[in-house]
């Protein structure tokens, strides 16, 4: 079959360009969303996504169908962890001692329900304050709407781990939001 010279830009291999663009590029937002929430910084997210996309392009030959989003998000996540351990050893490891954050349901009184601050600003802050492994699972589940199975294959964890992480992350988030709304309540004019 005659090979035409396509007008692809230099960084992309012409042969791979079209398929890569069709399969991987639609998930650029997903990649950015995860990287941005993990790094909490535009410039760092930029580095992570750029590196992850280059890796994705490099490994694209070995991508054998399946869910391209899961595949790309796993690369983004690995890239983030590699770059972080390189740049700031220990920072990322942020060990979460599950005993320190036990899964206790604070008495969920109907009152507490009204205290939950769910405006964008509070949510964003509370989410950024979560330790990375919890933030990650919340972002994948709630923002990216991945199933437990998809999260498990992105993070390389067992489904049981995903489930308990998610439960703890949500309890913690809820706690943060209740605390914040307590402060806000003082300014409430009612």
């Amino acid at each position, binding site marked *: *079959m*005659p090979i*035409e010279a*396509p*007008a*692809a*830009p230099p960084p*992309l291999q*012409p042969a791979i*360009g*079209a*398929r890569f*663009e*069709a399969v991987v*590029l639609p998930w*650029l*937002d997903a*990649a*950015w*969303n995860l990287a*941005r*929430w993990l790094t909490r910084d*535009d*410039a*760092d*997210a*930029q*580095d992570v*996504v*750029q590196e992850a*996309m280059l890796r994705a392009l490099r490994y694209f030959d070995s991508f054998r169908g399946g869910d391209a989003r899961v595949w790309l998000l796993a690369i983004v996540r690995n890239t983030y962890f590699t770059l972080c351990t390189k740049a700031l050893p220990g920072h990322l490891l942020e060990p979460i001692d599950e005993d320190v954050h036990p*899964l206790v*349901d604070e*008495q*969920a*009184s*109907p009152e*507490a*329900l009204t205290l*939950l601050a*769910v405006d*964008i600003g509070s*949510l*964003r802050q509370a*989410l950024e304050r979560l330790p990375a492994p919890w933030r990650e699972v*919340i972002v994948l*589940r*709630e*923002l990216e709407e991945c*199933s*437990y199975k998809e999260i498990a294959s992105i993070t390389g964890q067992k489904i049981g781990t995903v*489930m308990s992480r*998610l*439960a703890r992350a*949500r309890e913690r*988030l*809820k706690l943060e*939001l209740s605390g914040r709304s307590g402060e806000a309540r003082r300014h409430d004019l009612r």
Partner: protein
Amino acid sequence: MICADARQLLHAYLDDELDVAQSAAMATHLQGCATCAAGFREHQRLRHALAQPDLYRHAPAALRERWTPRREPADAVAPAAPYRSRRGPIVWALAAGFAGALLLATPLFYALQQHGAAGDMLADEAVSSHLRALQPQHLMDVVSTDQHTVKPWFDGKLDFSPRVVDLAGAGFPLVGGRLDALGGRSVAALVYRRHLHLISVYEWPAAALAASAALSESQQHGYTVLRWTEGGMQYVVVSDVDPAALHEFTQKLRQASDGGDLR
């Protein structure tokens, strides 16, 4: 079920990840237990709050541009965004400003350019679909060089009857057809051949308002997309064949459709 168990399963229940039996047990428990029900509602509320679209971070335009192959000469005229090193707050402020302006201007743009924008997305989709079809085993649902085999094959699979014409005499033999989806609806896809190149023809009924539209052409990384509306049907033709040959094909196709409609 006791409350301790319910607390264990609460999140999986919330995420719809429980099997039917557990899910039913959970629902029963929540009906009978006010404490667990309140906890559940709270998490539901939290979930709902986290679903606000503003929390989702979208890739900056500069990043997207860097990873999108250039398509048309119009794009090539604009200077390509060079890779900027990470410490460039001013550049980022500018980018943010640009993104903001884009956000503000986009609805207006869409209001004015709805047809054009929808058309570009359609061309994208058509190319992607054609590419997918080129992957092994995907090309054809019905393999036949006979339009009288291909056309009836679509019966009952679509809510319209596609025009299938024979262009073998013009050097474009019919190869087969398949069902496909473009812009959220089922369309007929016919596959023709020109030497070693394949041509996908998508057709579906046009919206009543735009019963006919002139031929428009676009290029996407080596593929030519031709698009027109005629006789109440929309057509999109995608191929990597030489654009001149594709125009010839299109002309023959339109003539055949016009003249007598070889059903």
